[in-house]
């Protein structure tokens, strides 16, 4: 697979990819702790953005409720760790299972009853919001006062229990982002990817050609929600506190998708590029307006970014940069 990717890419694209990868690998030794914390958030959004993009960008199913899968992954692994001492390296499987079950339930309802497009998106919002309300009333999970992970032992890195320094969390999320990228690139070039593309381009025609729509849409939702659930595990152990009123909110879901929308929905690099553009800009803006009582200035700015993208680069930044930098291979390629 890797050989094929390398073969089909232009030398310039490969060089760029190598430089970026190398820079990311040594970054924690070059930057201060603040920049590192920003990079960590960037990679987190690149990862969950990639997972979300698999559903809309690859298979054409719009979800505005991915916060649900992050939250389920986060709450499941955190609760298992706090209440039963189950390390996240095991808890992650329960977290994936929870997210996939929730994803499949939503998918089943949506696809079985032909709820499409925006209406399907509304269904995903509804599930995220009402699950949030339920969690808000479960005192075992801390209800509205939140669920907290014990913070101790910060000096040594314990990968199995995901307790350690920001540098460790950085490498974990970097590895996850790399994994999601590799998985998505493999899926995109598989039979599955071709089916998804057909469904995305023309669902009716795909159905008429004998694509089992329900099955392949369910697979997309299952993979996407499972990947997002893994992101939730990382989130819980990095932030150490979970509040239902922020975790399950649609604004969280929107933050997940913004990077992909700006970077380029349906592309492999779009979610990563989008996260690298948006998150630092948002941080700079927050720092610059610190103490000016401009609450919500980040949301306003992001709204502005999305509007600008939709108006001027509706395909996202990546396809444009791809052309400008001349990354296309000599022979005709797809993306």
């Amino acid at each position: 697979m890797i050989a094929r990717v390398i073969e089909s890419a232009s030398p310039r694209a490969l060089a760029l990819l190598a430089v970026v990868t190398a820079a990311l690998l040594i970054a924690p030794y070059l930057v201060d702790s603040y920049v590192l914390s920003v990079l960590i958030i960037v990679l987190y959004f690149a990862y969950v953005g990639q997972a979300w993009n698999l559903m809309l960008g690859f298979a054409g199913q719009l979800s505005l409720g991915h916060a649900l899968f992050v939250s389920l992954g986060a709450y499941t692994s955190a609760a298992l760790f706090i209440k039963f001492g189950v390390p996240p390296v095991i808890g992650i499987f329960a977290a994936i299972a929870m997210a996939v079950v929730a994803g499949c339930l939503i998918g089943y309802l949506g696809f079985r009853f032909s709820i499409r497009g925006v209406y399907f998106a509304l269904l995903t919002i509804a599930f995220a919001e009402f699950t949030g309300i339920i969690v808000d009333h479960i005192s075992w999970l801390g209800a509205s006062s939140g669920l907290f992970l014990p913070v101790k032992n910060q000096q040594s890195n314990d990968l199995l229990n995901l307790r350690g320094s920001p540098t460790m969390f950085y490498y974990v999320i970097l590895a996850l982002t790399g994994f999601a990228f590799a998985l998505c690139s493999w899926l995109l070039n598989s039979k599955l990817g071709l089916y998804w593309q057909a469904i995305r381009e023309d669902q009716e025609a795909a159905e008429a050609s004998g694509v089992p729509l329900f099955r392949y849409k369910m697979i997309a939702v299952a993979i996407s929600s499972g990947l997002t659930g893994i992101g939730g595990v990382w989130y819980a152990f990095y932030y150490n506190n979970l509040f239902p009123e922020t975790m399950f909110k649609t604004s969280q879901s929107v933050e997940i998708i913004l990077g992909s929308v700006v970077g380029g929905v349906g592309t492999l690099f779009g979610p990563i590029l989008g996260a690298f553009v948006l998150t630092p800009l948002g941080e700079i803006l927050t720092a610059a307006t610190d103490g000016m009582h401009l609450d919500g200035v980040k949301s306003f700015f992001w709204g502005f970014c999305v509007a600008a993208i939709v108006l001027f680069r509706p395909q996202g930044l990546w396809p444009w940069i791809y052309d400008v930098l001349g990354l296309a291979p000599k022979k005709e390629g797809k993306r």
Partner: protein
Amino acid sequence: MLDVEDLSVFYGDAQALDGVSLSIEQGEIVAIVGANGAGKTSLIRTIGGMHRPTKGKIRFKGVDITGWPSYRVCDLGVGQVAEGRQIFPNMSVLENLEMGAMLPRARKLKARNLEHIYGLFPRLKERAGQFAGTLSGGEQQMLAIGRCLMGAPELVMFDEPSLGLAPAIVQNMLAIIRTLNQDGLTCMLVEQNVAVSLRLARHGYVLENGRIMLKGGGEELLADDRVRQAYLGL
């Protein structure tokens, strides 16, 4: 080969088909003609498994396929060329064709069928690497037919194959359907273009408001006063 019995279909409260019965023998061309909204597309979609009938039975090669999902109907050998050339515009011509050969019944025959289709439509071979959305209308229709044939169907339902094509290309398209039929493919031709399709078909049905109003031989229907008045303006 195909037997449809007393088929009724609803979209919500609106009835699209009302007790439709028809049968197609192996190796023939059957035309279903009717005006816009008569239920032609609903008929194809229901036989193809994309819509569930409220009443009636559909049998193909003796197998009751009523209510089957479309991928199973396709895999049994029922192909459809949808109205308005539903191709995948951002996939290459070759990828479009490969999509048609994903059915279990067609996977092994892929290379042979591709050869056959390139022989039938040399233009598709020339444009194999091109995005399907860049093809002309006639070429897209060829691609839609080619993709359907990649699934190795025994019966193909054509939904308005002449729609939106220049007259010369329509003739070309009909010649292709005739050739395919001579090679053994059973064809169901659903058309607004009454004169052309009835001339091509051995049998025809006239569909009006979801009901079969008339049936008979193609030439016989063409000579029928009601058909001449309502559809040919004579």
